[in-house]
């Protein structure tokens, strides 16, 4: 494949996260990346999203409508939920491998779009139920059998309370193969509830189909003191032990 040239723009070029992004990008020889001052002339945007960034605010500030921009890279230390697939969430500190995977994805999509061809060829794995819709965990899979550090527990906790799509899980920085393996196990064991995209009605939060669905429902409430303490301890463990395995 010939080297392609992509143009990048960022409103936060001086931010450490964006500088780290630029440094990681310099390691990529596959394509040519060029920073431009004119956002309208760029293919991708890179935005620093510090802790506490509101998704609604982000979407209104960085709107892709009427631009040639194909995707926005959102650099964030937190989980950002509810963004469409053209917002690529990358957790900071940035992992080069995760960045390259994301770049492969968006550049391939752009390449295909430019040729006006059908989006990616369907592979066997893309026919898995969770590839096509939103899903939620109904119970814990056997987490110790996956080759991942404790970030996978953060991901599972998220999936107990938030119906998500596969692309929304990119933000957790966990290897795609591990996520697929976990979802496959959960599905096999009746611990995964999948809703089709076309059925994203509000009823999804109560509609459950598997035998496990008769279990109690997690109800978000104001956390009690003991819960907050437990969650606080886990956040400390994450900071220390994530990426350590």
């Amino acid at each position, binding site marked *: 494949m010939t080297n392609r040239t992509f143009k990048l723009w960022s409103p936060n070029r001086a931010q450490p996260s964006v500088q780290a992004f630029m440094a990681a990008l310099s390691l990529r020889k596959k394509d040519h990346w060029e920073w431009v001052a004119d956002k309208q002339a760029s293919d991708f945007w890179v935005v620093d999203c510090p802790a506490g960034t509101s998704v609604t605010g982000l979407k209104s500030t960085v709107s892709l409508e009427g631009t040639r921009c194909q995707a926005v890279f959102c650099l964030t230390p937190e989980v950002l939920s509810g963004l469409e697939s053209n917002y690529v969430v990358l957790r900071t500190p940035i992992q080069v491998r995760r960045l390259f995977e994301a770049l492969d994805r968006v550049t391939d999509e752009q390449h295909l779009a430019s040729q006006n061809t059908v989006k990616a060829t369907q592979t066997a794995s893309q026919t898995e139920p969770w590839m096509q819709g939103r899903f939620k965990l109904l*119970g*814990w899979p*056997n*987490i*110790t*059998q996956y080759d991942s*550090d*404790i970030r*996978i*527990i*953060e991901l*599972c*906790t998220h999936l*107990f*309370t938030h119906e998500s799509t596969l692309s929304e899980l990119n933000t957790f920085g966990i290897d795609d193969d591990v996520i697929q393996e976990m979802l496959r196990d959960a599905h096999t*064991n009746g611990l995964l509830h999948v809703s089709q995209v076309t059925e994203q009605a509000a009823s999804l939060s109560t509609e459950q189909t598997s035998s496990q669905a008769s*279990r*109690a*429902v*997690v*109800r*978000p*409430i104001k*956390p*009690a003191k*003991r*819960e907050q*303490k*437990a*969650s606080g*301890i*886990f956040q*400390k*463990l994450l900071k*220390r*032990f994530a990426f350590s*395995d």
Partner: protein
Amino acid sequence: MGPFGVGKTTALRAISDTDVVKMDVASAEVDQLDSAEGKTTTTVGFDYGEWRFGEEVIELYGLPGQERFSLLWDKFLPETSGVVLWLYGDKPDGIDEARRWLDILKSRDAIARLCVALTRVDSMNNALMIEYRNLVVKYHPFAPIITADPREKSHVLKAVSMALMTPFHLGG
């Protein structure tokens, strides 16, 4: 916590930042317990370790498994942020033993933040996992059941983390 010899002290040692303060003496029970073959000491008080995050200290306790130390359970369990229940996965009466421990935890308000860790069992033994899941769900619909080796730091870390992060509020 969990039954005698299951690996609680080993698990604590795997993750503690500090040397585990351990209270072991020669055990007279060893000969009576096939499952703990080779173990020559047992915990008669409690094991204590710590995680240190700057000035902040998180206390880690390994509680003795014998019924005669139930006063320690009464004292510690209601105050915990999370409990890992270590159980033998290879015992024929494992389910009955699990039920007994779950009753102990439930009666001491320590069932909500729980992870059940099965030792000495193949992680691919789905039938066993289902059997335990069917029991545990009666006590807590979201409590995780995992297979784990208490010598493996990553397994112990995951077990503790899952106990801390298991959905707490259970609605009907």
